[in-house]
């Protein structure tokens, strides 16, 4: 994680130092006509004004998104029946996760195939909300099928079955996947 942060840090520094190189400007590029000098300045000022308005609309749209997502949750996934399933990779696990399939009470509810970017995000500590839906209160059967490849190149296929209990409040179920160790699929409930 630290290495990743350092890599990002190095990236911005690279760009910083690119900028700090007055001597690097080729002589032939320095011949910008003088009469054009004011035009970019005006453009830059207009650009800054526009940029601020773009920031404002982004802020507004984010606020709409938040309200809309609350409305959506209330309408489609009321707390009394809401269940959310999350997928995370065990810390430092090198497994290449290809797919996850979930069945609740024998019904297929989610089947996700991971892109390289999604896998990378999971490896760096991100958590995917793979499913959100509704179930009645009481006990439910969850079947998790995981497909992937181990670091050695060997196939990794596991199926685990769990029981989870839905209470009146929203149910959060976390699945932590690991290619190594004794618990390839660990269930955490909130």
């Amino acid at each position, binding site marked *: 994680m630290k290495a990743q*942060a*350092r*890599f*990002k*840090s*190095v*990236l*911005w*520094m*690279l*760009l*910083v*130092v*690119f*900028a*700090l*190189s*007055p*001597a*690097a400007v*080729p002589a032939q590029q320095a011949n*910008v006509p003088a009469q*054009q000098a004011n035009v970019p300045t005006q*453009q*830059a000022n207009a*650009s800054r004004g*526009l940029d*601020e*308005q*773009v920031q404002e*609309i*982004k*802020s507004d*749209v*984010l606020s*709409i*998104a*938040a309200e*809309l*997502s609350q*409305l*959506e949750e209330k*309408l*489609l996934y*009321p707390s009394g029946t809401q269940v959310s399933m*999350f997928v*995370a990779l065990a810390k430092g696990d090198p497994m290449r996760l290809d797919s996850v399939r979930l069945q609740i009470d024998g019904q297929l509810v989610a089947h996700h195939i991971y892109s390289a*970017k*999604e896998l*990378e*995000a999971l490896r*760096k*500590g*991100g*958590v*995917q*909300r793979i499913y959100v839906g509704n179930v009645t*209160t009481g006990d439910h059967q969850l079947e998790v099928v995981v497909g992937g490849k181990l670091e050695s190149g060997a196939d990794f296929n596991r199926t685990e079955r769990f029981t989870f209990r839905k209470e*009146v409040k929203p149910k959060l179920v*976390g699945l932590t996947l690991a290619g190594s160790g004794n618990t390839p699929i660990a269930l955490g409930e909130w």
Partner: protein
Amino acid sequence: MRALRQLIALGLVLGLAATPAAGDLKDFYFGEALYHALQGRYFDALQRLDTERAMYRGLDQPQLDTLHYHINDAEFSVGDFELNYRMHHRAGRAIKAVLEGAVDEAVRNEAAFRLARIHFQKGQLDDALHALARIQGTVPEQIKDDVEFLRANVYIATGRPSEAVKVLEQVRSDEGLAGFVAYNLGIALLQDGRQQEAIAQLDKAGQLPSPDKAGLAIRDKSNLVLGAILFELGNFERARQSVDRVRLEGLYSNQALLRAGWAEASAKQFDRALVPWNILANREPTDVAVQEAMLAVPHSYANLKLYGRAAITYGLALELFSNQIERVDASMRSIKEGRFLKALIREETRQDADWVISLRTLPDAPETYYLMELMASHDFQTALQNYLDLEELRSKLIAWQTSLDAFDDIIRLRGQNYDPLLPDVDAQFRDLDARMRLRLEQRNHLGKRLQAMLTAPRPEYLATAEERSALERIALIEKQLGDSDSPASLALRQRAARLRGTLTWRLETEYQERLTAAYEHLKELTPNVDALTRQYDDFVRTRQAATHSYVGYDVQIARLRMRVGDAVQRVDSLMARQGHMIETVAINQLAARRERLVVQQNQARFGVADSYDRAARTPTGPEER
């Protein structure tokens, strides 16, 4: 200076990527926000995290919430996400909030550092220095080098290179950062007027081992800058050696090849200058360095007195410049016709978060001929990023309008389903509810009475129905006997008293057993009452959910629809203005480029004529043949 800061700002934007929370993740939704951010989907990340933080702040006991474990990370992450989503104003506010909150020293220092980076990015250099000055005491280990590096950059940007030198000399960074520190130190020395030290430092930076692509790129940059300085000083041999160290396939290879050629040409080594220039002349013809090499090659041939070849290569250059002018014209026409913006917002471009790179894969068309060249301009990039962000917002808003229509449908259908059902359900429920309440009250009453009988025994309350009936009959007999003194009455009265005594004896002696049994019987009801209560609660919740599923949304949906509609209009208006600005910037840049191409075309045209003229006057040598 402004351009410099803008470029630095670009670097900062790219650098402030999401940093996942340290340690084990306790809050799934925070993890979900990171998941989006780590894929470059900052809007989704912000939407998730804003919602989480709002809910956290609304709690009576936030310390019991899972986000509490990550709240500092979450506050930082919001700032980072906002910065990555180019919302500098909000990013600054978010980080200031952390800085001014009751947090420990390390967290406050990290916040100050992040705030300094934002100020630096916005060109507010004094504020950046002020924020850096707030860093005191414990600085988190992972940002120590970054803090000093930023401090040095601010000093350089504010024209204080000697202070930057002092800071950079103290930075003891690991292998990954060493190249950057070394290079910036060279630049600071150069700006401080310590030319020889700068040359030595850049020479060192240009030979450092590098663990990754970024390190290799900065090493190339060091060598290129060093080559340029040495070239200006007339030290062509060392300049050539320096640019020769630049990799042939790197970001700076074209510039390095061009400069290597000039180093040789300046030393009158035209045959050696032709080697890098000929390599360059076969590269992408829209590149400035390549176009310059197209004139430099015949220039070398002419200096080698190979006028025939000079004439031919000038001819090739002339053809290239003419073609490029046509391409620039076509690009400008295409931009004016609005095709440029359409090309940029193609879906395939947006699939990849690294869209600048994916632009390279756009089909070759007039609107995209000079795209990568235009992308080199920071103003253009910023404007384009804003335009693409607006386009993304627009797509979301349009999708939300559809969602709102769908919500209306859902609500209508639910209403159609529930409205006829609920009155009967409610009537049945009221009846059952009344009966249930009566029974529960009776139970509670009995419970209270039994409880009272523990301290104030009332055996008659525990008599059976038969016993109660017998007692009533005895009482009736006693009443009928009245006060008669007849022997028969006396005998009967005695018998009645005996019977009453027998019953009283039984009630008194069996009182404890009967009380226990009554209590046990009442207790046996508890599971049934609990089940009944659960069922009752379930029904009430379901009944409420039925109402909540379609009642009370009209105002909210109408308001949201209005806000979405209003936002669409504003986005459209901003897109039109931003698009116009992009097109203007592009056309201006292309016009400048065209002007330059026309000059080069004239030079090539003159070169062709001059070379043919000289070739005609010079006897053909063996090399020429």
